[in-house]
């Protein structure tokens, strides 16, 4: 099965208010889309507030951000230089070279690939996640050791690597900054709630650095959303 077979219909969802998957599940999905497919572990948060019926785009002509657009948007959102976003073996650009074709780029000079592939490839999702994870990791590690963080500021991390209180303004403000820089909008209350719940789940798993891991995975989850990857 080609990823685009289900990605393409799901593109329409990016024009809905993409604040949570359960809200989408409660709304209207395009025909043939299995709402439970690839949706991750359901959040047990009680009855779902579906809200008003969302107007959907009849055209749903969304396009995935190609390699350089993905690189540039990650760089802009995370305050990185484009050549810092993702390097394989610390040397070779993921977006410009190693995964360029899988990410919708071309290689005309040596491979004769003069135009991008018309569809995403089997390795596109893997490459996208690889790139976003690298960028998010770089931003989190830099921020948590910096006096002038870009995204992750005033989190209140204790010596044991845990957040002193996931409900502080520092946590909320960091999430807000991430949404504004990455999605050009403010997070909705439900989204903040889900992401703080993510921290609690991570801490419950017993990892050594739950606050650091949470920063990385929060960034990853937001910047690999359909809303972030398609335009």
């Amino acid at each position, binding site marked *: 099965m080609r990823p685009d077979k289900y990605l393409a219909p799901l593109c329409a969802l990016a024009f809905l208010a993409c604040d949570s998957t359960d809200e989408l599940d409660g709304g209207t999905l395009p025909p043939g889309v299995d709402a439970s497919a690839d949706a991750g572990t359901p959040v047990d948060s009680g009855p779902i507030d579906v809200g*008003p*019926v969302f107007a959907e785009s*009849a*055209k749903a002509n969304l*396009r995935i951000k190609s390699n350089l657009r993905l690189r540039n948007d990650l760089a802009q959102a995370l305050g990185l230089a484009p050549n810092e976003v993702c390097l394989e073996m610390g040397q070779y650009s993921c977006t410009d070279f190693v995964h360029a074709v899988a990410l919708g780029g*071309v290689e005309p000079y*040596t491979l004769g690939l003069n135009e991008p592939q018309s569809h995403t490839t089997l390795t596109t999702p893997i490459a996208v996640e690889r790139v976003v994870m690298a960028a998010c990791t770089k931003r989190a590690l830099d921020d948590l050791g910096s006096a002038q963080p870009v995204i992750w500021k005033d989190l209140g991390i204790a010596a044991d690597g845990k957040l002193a209180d996931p409900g502080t303004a520092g946590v909320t403000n960091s999430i807000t900054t991430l949404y504004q820089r990455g999605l050009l909008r403010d997070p909705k209350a439900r989204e903040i709630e889900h992401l703080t719940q993510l921290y609690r789940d991570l801490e419950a798993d017993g990892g050594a650095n739950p606050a650091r891991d949470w920063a990385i995975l929060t960034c990853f989850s937001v910047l690999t959303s359909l809303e972030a990857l398609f335009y």
Partner: protein
Amino acid sequence: MRIHTLGVMAAVLAWSWPADAKPTAPQAFCNQYAESPICKGGIPACTMCHLASPPTRNSFGMAIESMLLPGSPRPLTNEDFLGALPTALRGIEATDADGDGYTNLAEILAGTQPGAGESVPRPIDCSGDLGFNEDWSVCQYDVRLVFKKLHLDFCGRSPSWDEYQTFKALPSAQQPAAIHAALDRCLDSEFWIGQDGQLWQLAHRKIKPLQAIKAGDDAGTIPLADYYDDYGLFVYTQMDNHDAREVLTADYFITRRRNPTSYVKAGNNDPIGEQGVAVNRRAGLMTTRWNLVLNVMFTALPRTAAAQAYRSFLGVDIGKQEGIYSVEGEPVDYDEKGVGSEVCARCHATLDPLAYPFKNYQGLTGNIGSYDPNRIQDDFRNEGANINAMPEAGYIFGQPVADLVQWARVAADSDQFAKATVLDYWKLLLGHEVQATEQEEFEALWRDLKGPTHNYGVEKMLHALIETEAYGAP
């Protein structure tokens, strides 16, 4: 290696359409349904009646076939086929060949495919209660969407949070101007005009670079020609509202400067990559050293060069039976390749006269990449008994031309050139071919490109393109 390549090329050129495919059918279809959106954007592809490629027919093709002179022996002659086609088409208008619930006529008039069940008329209904969407105006042009989208398309990045907030805070009457100002900034960005930028990407399939034989900067192991000259010329014609037709008619070359990137006409002291064609014989990208090396190579009659130019700049692919304008008495088959046989002649009656004007341009023979009026007699005397009689005059779109410079003029002034130019950008920016509901906007764009509104300025056309519903409605 080179011999192998030539062998493949010869095989491709000698290959021809099966006897029951009709290269003239698409034009005949449009003669009958000129009002169909399919015909306003060009002529139908083979897939209108066939599966991936002829001769296998789809359901619509089979329906036509059943109505074409039933009982007459197959294959039909071209004359019989064309004579019977209008009646056959009318005879199946009320039926539904692909069983998708829409009659063939309804699909033809809507611009969808009557032989493909998944292609159905899909009017966008914006009446009634559409529901709530705080992020987008899902059924109309949305300036917020366009502001974001144009940054990604032309600048290669989303607007920053601050840029977006500033834009949203503008009075609505000022937002369109802000959109166009943003587009102007992006049209000068490295992402758009720089090396490997979007304009270079548009040029790749026209130039078909091959690093192994590149000369000049970043030279390959067998340096034969420098395609950076070609990219420079292409980009120059597409930027700053220069005349886009000069991609085919330019008699000059371009110097590219970097950091930041700019393109200027080359002066006498600017290096250009051993361009050997005299100024009065130049025809834009068709006569660069790179194009001649790559597409003329060792051939007496450079059919590949002609077909590549036809496809790249005019959007018509003879290999797909597009752009067929058979010339009476052709092909003569001066180089004795056997193209006079009936099945070959259907395409070669167009292709060979299309290629004659290239005959004096040296590829990898003689003085590489030059114009030589004695090229055939000096370098190809053994190619056929009549090879020296091959004319330089030829035909394009059924119109006689004396040489390649005139060929380029006719091509550049044609509707096909304007359509192909706009279609390149349409596909780059929208990611798909022109849909039935978009035909009207597409037609307005290419007609304005030709006319005084845009006067062949691509950037003016792009400013109009981002104002279309096709681009700006989510």
